[in-house]
Each structure stands twice: as structure tokens, then as C-alpha cells.
């Protein structure tokens, strides 16, 4: 081989090796992000953790930063209630819509619905919040709540739940549709040949067969709803206290962090307390996501024959 050729080959291999190293470093750093994030939040909240203890913080109901009382229970409960409500409203709608789209729908409906889901998924959180304050909140205050309670401002747990449910619908429907399409049509045909109606087939074959995926999708949507900030901040009312009914105001963790970022540096422990709130969210969402993704990947593998 000529010298020039050798040099050229050497250069190419060198470039390849160099690229390998750079990419490897980038990938490992990115893998570390989660660890650094969790670690950073833990470090920041260590001040309040060592002063109060995890259990006291989580189960405490008293919240007054001025006197150094930090009880997160009302916020955690608000977050959980809003999320559960969003799932209770969003999942049945998404499940039925996805079944309709995969089993019954005419071609034009299918064609029309995906751009709509795209739009719903793309609309920014603050715009959902705006829609919530203009449409959902007055509707609850003037139309819905008067049937049940004497007075409600409309800025309630229910408003948060409804807005969140609309926000998780696009995610749920597209995941459900994807999953239902993986169900082999032989199974459905077999069920139909035994005299099952379409709904019976859907309920007993399609949903049952897709259940691991359905659960994983719900878990994903839970973590999305749990972390959503601006939209819930705008419609939930944000009054500290455990909500006792749908028409009570709620104050989720994410809203707590977003509302108080400005003043948190002025009070002792306040910053640490808010970082603890972020840490709670991080941990919950981390666990939920790992479970959901692992299940989804299993499902994906199983059906890729």
C-alpha cells in the first residue's frame, strides 16, 4: 500500500475513534442527568429534611412559611385528587374513542381525528389554562356547581380535573389506538364467530388482551397530569387546605412551586421546602415512568413477531 493511502486510512480510523469517544461521553453524561437531577434536588432539600424529618413534612397539614411550618399533605393530596379526577374523566373517553377509531369508525373520521389529536397535544399549557378560566370555570360556577352546593367560585378541584383530562386525552388515545392495532384480527374473528357482539369482543378480547399496555398508558398519563403546572395553577384556586369536595379549591404541588418561586429566597428554609416539593414530584414521576416504560417495552417486544 502506498504511503498516502495508508495515511488516508489512518485518518479515517482516527476520526471514527474520536467520534466514538465524543459520542460515548455525551451519552454517559446524559445518562447521568437523572442522577444529578435527583441528587441536586435531594441536596437542596437536605436542610429542611434534617430539620423536620421526611414523615413530618409529608404528613404535616400546617403550612405557614413565615413561622417555619411546612406541611405538604394538603398539596400532595390536592395533586393526587386532581390527577385521579383527570384520569377518571379522561380514560373512559379515550378508551371508548380509541375503540371506536380502531373497530367501528369510517375512514374519514380516522383521517380527521389524528390532526385533531396533534393539535390537542401541541396546544401549550398556558392556553389550556386560559381556556379553563374562560370556559370551564364559569361553567362550574354558574351551571354545574349550583346543583350541588350553594356557592362555588368555579376555581376548583373539578376545574383542574377537567382541564387536565383534556390535556391527557391526546396521549391516551394515540397510545390506546397503537395498542389496539397490535391485537391480531384472528382473535377478534374467533370471538365474532362465537356470536359475540362487537362490544363484547372489544370488552372481552381487545381490552383484556391489551390490558398491560392500557395500564402502562394510564400510568404515563398519570405522571403527565401530576406534573402539569400552569394550566392547573390557573384554574385550581390555590388555597391552602385539604379539599373536601369537588367544589373546593385545590393547591397542587406544582402550583405551589410555581407560585412561590419569587419570594422563596427571602425566608429561611423556604427554598429548601420548595425544592423538597420538586423532589417529591421527581421521585413519584420517576417511579411511575420507569414502571410504565418497562411494561410498554415488554408489550412492544411481545407483539413484534
Amino acid at each position, binding site marked *: 500500500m502506498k504511503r498516502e493511502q495508508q495515511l488516508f486510512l489512518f485518518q*479515517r480510523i482516527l*476520526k*471514527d475513534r474520536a*467520534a*466514538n469517544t465524543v459520542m*460515548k461521553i*455525551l*451519552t454517559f453524561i*446524559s*445518562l447521568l442527568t*437523572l442522577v444529578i437531577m435527583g441528587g*441536586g434536588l435531594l441536596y437542596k432539600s437536605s436542610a429542611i429534611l434534617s430539620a423536620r424529618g421526611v414523615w413530618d413534612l409529608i404528613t404535616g397539614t400546617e403550612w405557614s412559611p413565615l413561622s417555619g411550618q411546612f406541611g405538604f399533605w394538603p398539596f400532595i393530596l390536592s395533586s393526587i385528587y386532581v390527577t385521579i379526577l383527570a384520569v377518571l374523566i379522561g380514560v373512559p*373517553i379515550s378508551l*371508548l*374513542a380509541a*375503540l371506536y*377509531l380502531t373497530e*367501528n369508525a369510517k375512514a374519514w*373520521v380516522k383521517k*380527521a*381525528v389524528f390532526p*385533531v*389529536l*396533534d*393539535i*390537542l397535544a*401541541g*396546544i*401549550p*399549557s*398556558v*392556553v*389550556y389554562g*386560559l*381556556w379553563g*378560566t*374562560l*370556559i370551564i370555570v364559569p361553567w362550574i360556577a354558574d351551571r354545574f356547581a349550583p346543583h350541588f352546593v350553594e356557592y362555588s367560585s368555579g376555581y376548583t378541584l373539578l376545574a383542574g380535573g377537567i382541564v387536565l383530562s*383534556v390535556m391527557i*386525552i391526546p396521549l391516551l*388515545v394515540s397510545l390506546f389506538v397503537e395498542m389496539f392495532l397490535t391485537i391480531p384480527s384472528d382473535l377478534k374473528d374467533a370471538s365474532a364467530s362465537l356470536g359475540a*357482539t*362487537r*362490544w363484547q369482543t*372489544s370488552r372481552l378480547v381487545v381490552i383484556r388482551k391489551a390490558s398491560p399496555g392500557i395500564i402502562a398508558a394510564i400510568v404515563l398519563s398519570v*405522571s*403527565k397530569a401530576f*406534573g402539569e*403546572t*400552569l394550566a392547573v395553577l*390557573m384554574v385550581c384556586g390555590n388555597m391552602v387546605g385539604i379539599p373536601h369536595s369537588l367544589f373546593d379549591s385545590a393547591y397542587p404541588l*406544582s402550583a405551589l412551586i410555581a407560585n412561590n*418561586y419569587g419570594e422563596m429566597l427571602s425566608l429561611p428554609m423556604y427554598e429548601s421546602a*420548595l*425544592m423538597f416539593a420538586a423532589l417529591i414530584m421527581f421521585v413519584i*414521576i*420517576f417511579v*411511575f415512568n*420507569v414502571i410504565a416504560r418497562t411494561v410498554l*417495552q415488554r408489550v412492544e417486544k411481545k407483539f413484534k413477531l
Partner: protein
Amino acid sequence: MKFKFIEEKIFDLLMILSTFAVFGFCASIIWTILKTGFGPLTWEMITSLPGGGFYLGKEGGILNAIAGSLMIVLSSAFLGLIISIPIVFYINVYRKRSSRLSYFTRLSFDVLFGIPSIVYGAFAFTIMIFFGLKTSLLGGIIVITLLIIPIFVRSMDEVAKSVSKDLLDATYSLGATRLESCKVVLRQIAPGIATATLLSVGRAIGDAAGVLFTAGFTDNIPTSLDQPAATLPLSVFFQLSSPIPEVRERAYAAALLLTIIVLLLSLTGRILTSRFSKNRIK
């Protein structure tokens, strides 16, 4: 009539109603934004900075927020691309797609994707305090870059996964190094990257919770990295909490503008996918 047929009818109806509800929600949101935002949206609002007494309803516009959002999102998209493209190639070309490292990388990006932006904001805020930074354009860029990388990696990985292994083998058999094979793969996934970029930018520009902590808010266009920067979503949010109707109307207009930008980006993304996927080797 048998029970199962009644049941069938009921659920058929419920399914149609649910699908109708999805359309209805979308229509309601778009209609609300259009109805409230179209009137107050003027050329002056898009092209001028907030004047004196802007937040009392006097003249001025939201150019500060538009410029701030664009600066943050464009820089973040650029930085994000530089970081995420090598990662995608690493787990798809340099490593076997099914290797343990690739699996963990995917899983961790999936999880990062799920972490809400408020947590990113809080985390980036702690980093900024650590380095002694104040709320600034730089802070906003940092947090949006962190936020955008998982979106980039996930969507590009989806595309890169679909490049057939035969194609890679063919390049190797011609004596290409892995880096040179990456170039071939890049050709194949370029439309995918373009779509991913547009969709991620759309998501990033609408994100408010992350920049709330880190970018701050200002009436001016930032001229250097350490000045605070206004952003469109926050502009909507702040003006909406005003008791003055004129200011709230401007929030509606800003929301309409934001929605238009996001939808345009996503529409362009879709068109790109369908237009430029001709050269794909399946």
C-alpha cells in the same frame, strides 16, 4: 331483544359520543382562543415593545416576549441538536440497538421526557444559584435545552430505529467506518430530524413552567446572555392575572399568537414528513 344487543347499542352510542367529545374539546379550545384573541391582536402588538403604562392598559406590544421566546428556543434547539444527534447515532450505529447500554439510554430518556418542566425549572434554578447566575436569557436557554434534549432524542431515535440493518451492513461491506455509515444514516433520517426539530421547538416555545424560575421577565429585548428575558407563555400568564380588561385582552391575543406559532410549527413538521420521505430506503 337480547341484553347483549342493547348493551351493544349503548356502547356504540357512548363510543361515538366520546369521539365527538374529543373533537368538541378541540373545537371549543380553538374557538375560545380565536374569539377572544382575534379582536385585540393588532400589528402594533406584534411589532412594539411595552410602552409606559402598558400593564395598565396603555399602548405597547409584546415584542419583548416574542423576541425572548425566539432567542431562547432557537438557541436551545441548536444546542439540543448538537448534543442529541451524536447520542442517537451512538445508540443506533456505534452500539447495537439491542445492547444493554442502548436500552438504558432509551429508558432514561423516556423518563427524562416524563419529568415535568417545573421540576426542570427548579433543578436548573439550583444549578444557576450554584454558579451564581441570576434569572437571565442564559438560564432560560439552559433549562429549555435540558427540556428539549429528551424530546429530540426520543423522536429521532424512533426514526433512526426504522433504518434497516441491511443498509448499515451494506455500508460496512464497502469498507466504510462507522462514522461514514452515520452519514448514510443521516441522509435517511434527515426528514425525521427536521420534523422532530419542529415538533420539539413547538413544545419548547409553549413551555412556561421551566422558564418561570430561570429566564425572569422584562420589558426589553435582552442584548446579552446575562439579562433577563421575557417569554410568550409567561406574558400570557402575567397579563391574564391583571384586573384591567384591556390587559387581559392582550393576554388573549398573545395566547392566540402563541397557539398560531405552535400549530404552524407542527403543521410544517407534518408536511415535511410526507414530502421528504420519498428517498427513504425501506
